[in-house]
């Protein structure tokens, strides 16, 4: 069968789910995740013809999400850790183990940049250098964000005995 090479609509249909999940980890909120992903996909849609390597479109969208989220971090000014986790109601929809749920609750309390660092390092499996490139910061900043994220999580959940992992 001759068919068109994968077009944007096909790409979006196939990758909406996985990309939404990444957006959800980045934002910690289902509504923000949907908004972030829609914006990144809209940017990708209008640039689709200029993306030569369609196989890299996933990474393109992810980068667009990280950049868009970064701009929001800047608008919010100083990142403030609060005791309130937004979108608590969604916890009921997550079918995960209790210890994962507890740790996820603390990860969501992390400042967005720290959380994004963990997502890129530990879920997207990017190197420290690649994570730094995605976040637009130095490798040192990635190491620092990771270190402080683990420190905060250890403090919040002392029973988990989190150990730092080197790259």
């Amino acid at each position, binding site marked *: 069968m*001759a068919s068109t090479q994968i077009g944007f609509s096909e790409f979006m249909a196939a990758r909406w789910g996985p990309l*939404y999940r990444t957006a959800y980890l980045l934002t910690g909120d289902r509504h923000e995740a949907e908004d972030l992903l829609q914006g990144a*996909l809209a940017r990708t849609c*209008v640039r689709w*013809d200029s993306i030569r390597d369609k*196989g890299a479109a996933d990474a393109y969208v992810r980068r667009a999400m990280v950049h868009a989220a970064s701009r929001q971090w800047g608008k919010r000014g100083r990142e403030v850790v609060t005791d309130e986790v937004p979108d608590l109601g969604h916890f009921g929809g997550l079918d995960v183990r209790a210890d*994962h749920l507890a740790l996820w609750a603390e990860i969501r309390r992390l400042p967005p940049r720290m959380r994004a660092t963990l997502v890129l390092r530990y879920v997207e499996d990017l190197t420290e250098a690649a994570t730094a490139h995605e976040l637009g910061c130095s490798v040192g900043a990635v190491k620092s964000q990771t270190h402080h994220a683990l420190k905060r999580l250890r403090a919040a959940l002392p029973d988990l005995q989190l*150990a730092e992992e080197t790259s």
Partner: protein
Amino acid sequence: MSATEIRETLKAVRDAAVVPTVDRVAFARRVRAERRRRTAARAAAATAVAASVAAVAGVSASVLPRDPAPPTSVAAAAVADPEQLVGFVVDGHLVVGGSGGYHVTSVPARNVLGVVDELLVLTDGTGALVGVPVAADGTPGPERRLLPGAVAYAWLDRGDGTVYVVDELGRLRSWRPGDGRWTTQPSPQADLYLVDSGHQVESGPGGATLVADGLRRALPSGGGITGGGLAGSVLAWETTRQLRFYDADTGRRLARVPGQWSGALSTDGRSYAGSQDGRVSVVDTRDGAVTDVSGPAGLDGVAWTGDATFVGRERTADGATLWECRADTLSCTRLYADPSGTLQLHS
């Protein structure tokens, strides 16, 4: 507990997150806004460039003699006539090649689906499905709309010459050249990614599924789906990690080849022509044997134009080149050079 626990937790949460359906109305609104924003940014940039060019020209005119205006572009050039009829797009318009040379038309075009029964089928930038009659030597006739309205997706089954579309109302419809009427198929239960006569690949939040008579088979995402094709009861499934071939009737995997491939199945489904890592190859879909083809350093938009002939575009520093390759002799011929770099077979 180590940082591995964070990885496990994040991945568990990722997998458990309930994915909402796409709000297509909201998304269309976002796309329109993004297009407006981009157009405004380009206009602003163009104004700035024009102003700077005018300023430079003003300075130059005072100190340099006036030279004749240089040529503004290098014309596209036909290098060789194709063995098989081929349609492609240059600067948003259809070009048809045949034994009688190339015909640059004024027909707006975006995706060329292929030629069946001397009718070249394409979609344009507005989603219109258009047919252009073509003679054996490549001479095009007057184009005509094959279906009112726009289509969201279109596929051509070269095996039996059936055109499938998902129309504006989300209906799957089919038509064969020579038939007077379109047939509306049973409504798809999910987004359709690939369609041919007897098989479909559906795409949903849970991933992609091969659907055939009595068969539903989940397909691996393999780090990201990059493409696929159905032909001759074979499914080619391209991901960022592997190229896999399946028997589309039974779902049985026939072969797999490592690497990120981009290509197309031959009409009988026995061969796959594609590009990976800067080389062009023909792959036997039954055992995965890879045989390299000499000529271009990579092709995209690969499309089969005959039983043993396929075409594809090579991007070069000088623009784009259309190649025609033979799967039996494993050789390629340069057909058409496009300095503008807008040459494409599919968007």
